[in-house]
């Protein structure tokens, strides 16, 4: 067992792609258990790890996000957000945050949102006199609201693996996501005078707000179509994702007329590439997780945690710190697939609701997207804007603290996550 764990960390540290590391160490583990006779387990697990209908929702949501972006939805949402909050001090940063929340109802992945916003919002803010690291930090902080407010790829993975209702998880993510947005806006407002953020535009007339609302209405409806369908139990998440794709296609091609047929090939290729990267991790992780289950590692980790403390609050704290620490170094999909089931089961065993436990884990991992040294959203912003990671990080801390605050609220205050699912009867 030491060999497997040791090679895992060494390979990871020297820069072997995480998908390769998971597969190679998984094969080591299988060889250790059963010698060469069990090696056919590896391709079987590699295949079976992907063979879930709910996973279809991921490429579909990625594709829908691509289309919405190309169709100019991002800009329309930004205009509406600007009409709402653009007049405040730091108005552009505020409207960027509001757009993130609005866009979160369409996208399920933070990196997609980070890329879309980073290439448009950061230059816009910089041209208005914002410091670039701060502009990047706002976008990064906003991007992790994307996978907190449904749809969310991480919730799809967690729900599929743990047998927890994905609709329930989606409903439970809404409130924490909105609060994260509010907290970040409070941070911007609080920093406004100290950082001397530029004053916003003039207070808009009601007419302008209404017009901006109308222009973005067809995009604002989308989350309601997706969520309404799933939460009312009429369609499955996968089917809702397919409906989102067709709705986005109809908007992009016939209403806004920004998406042409040959654009579709490019968008499909990009969707395939992103899917390939994530699915390699999922497939390879299921080889390693088979070994972990065989070696009873989940039980050992659970015993370890329960041995350290019997106080539920302490155990939850340890789970959170473990996830936040790992999230700094590892890809969050990999952590979710390998540790999600173990920690989820541990949290429910001490009396936490499975849905609340799921949101807590997903949220802790999302924060890993923006913490250095390895944070996917941080990387995307750095490469899109050309700003150094260290400088973005320095501007990020107030946002990280605010969002971690929401994480702790989720962990210790059940009604924050469970009220909406209960209200909807899920």
């Amino acid at each position, binding site marked *: 067992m030491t060999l497997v764990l040791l090679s895992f960390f060494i390979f990871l540290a020297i820069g072997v792609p995480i998908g390769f590391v998971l597969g190679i160490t998984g094969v080591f583990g299988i060889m250790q258990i059963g010698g060469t006779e069990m090696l056919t387990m590896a391709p*079987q697990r590699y295949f079976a790890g992907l063979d879930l209908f709910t996973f279809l929702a991921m490429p579909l949501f990625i594709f829908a996000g691509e289309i919405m972006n190309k169709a100019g939805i991002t800009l329309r949402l930004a205009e509406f957000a600007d009409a709402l909050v653009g007049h405040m001090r730091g108005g552009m940063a505020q409207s960027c945050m509001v757009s993130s929340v609005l866009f979160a109802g369409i996208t399920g992945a933070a990196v997609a949102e980070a890329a879309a916003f980073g290439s448009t919002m950061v230059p816009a803010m910089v041209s208005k006199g914002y410091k670039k690291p701060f502009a990047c930090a706002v976008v990064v902080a906003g991007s992790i609201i994307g996978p907190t407010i449904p749809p969310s790829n991480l919730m799809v993975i967690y729900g599929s693996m743990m047998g927890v209702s994905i609709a329930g998880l989606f409903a439970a993510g809404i409130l924490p996501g909105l609060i994260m947005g509010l907290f970040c806006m409070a941070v911007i407002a609080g920093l406004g005078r100290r950082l001397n953020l530029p004053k916003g535009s003039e207070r808009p007339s009601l007419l302008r707000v209404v017009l901006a609302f109308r222009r973005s209405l067809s995009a604002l409806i989308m989350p309601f179509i997706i969520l309404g369908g799933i939460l009312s139990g009429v369609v499955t998440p996968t089917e809702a994702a397919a409906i989102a794709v067709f709705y986005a296609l109809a908007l992009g091609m016939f209403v806004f007329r920004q998406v042409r047929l040959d654009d579709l090939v490019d968008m499909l290729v990009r969707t395939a590439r992103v899917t390939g990267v994530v*699915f390699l991790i999922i497939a390879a992780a299921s080889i390693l997780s088979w070994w972990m289950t065989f070696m009873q590692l989940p039980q050992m980790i659970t015993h370890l945690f329960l041995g350290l403390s019997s106080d539920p609050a302490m155990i939850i704290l340890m789970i959170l710190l473990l996830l936040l620490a790992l999230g700094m170094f590892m890809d969050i999909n990999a952590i979710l697939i390998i540790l999600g089931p173990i920690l989820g089961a541990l949290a429910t065993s001490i009396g936490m609701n499975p849905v609340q436990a799921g949101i807590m884990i997903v949220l802790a991992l999302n924060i890993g997207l923006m913490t250095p040294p390895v944070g996917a959203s941080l990387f995307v912003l750095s490469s899109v804007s050309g700003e150094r990671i260290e400088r973005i990080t320095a501007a990020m801390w107030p946002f990280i603290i605010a969002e971690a605050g929401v994480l702790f609220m989720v962990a210790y205050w059940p009604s924050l996550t469970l009220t909406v699912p209960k209200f909807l009867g899920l």
Partner: protein
Amino acid sequence: MTITENISSSQQLGAASAALGARINKWVEWLCAGLLAVMVLDVGVGVFGRYLIDIPVTWSEELARYLMIWAALLAVSCGVARREHVAVTALLDRLSKNQRRMLCAGIDMLGFAFFAFLCYFGVGMTVDGSTQYATIFEMTMFIPFAAVPVSSALVCLQLVLTGVRDFTIGGSPAMLVKEAQ
């Protein structure tokens, strides 16, 4: 004299693998896009059939899963060709260009070993799969399972071509930062 010849011939080799790798990758990407397009239509047919014309389409779900697996596994090789697979690059970033070249070559070989292994044992699984039946079309599991050995062989090929490309031309073993869009 021999040294300069060696350099130019190794660079020629690098350029040739770069060109071949890019061409194969283009085809694979189109194939993936095609598979995904069919998958989207297929799920659409399922939804349409179930909710609008009230004729449940029983095969759409299973077909969509296998299309997704084929597309995603084939796309793994695209991630290799573009060096998009997520890795911790803190160490790589600190190495000199030459050291980085060496380490990347080592990483590529490690990856090659894994996917060659998956391909070899995947063939066995696929052959066995020809006696198992999927629930639709009376199809055997041969075609779905074949995604594992076929895609793994393709990943091996791309690892060789990309490895040779980055080792010889030196270029930039582009940092494996998670690619967004």
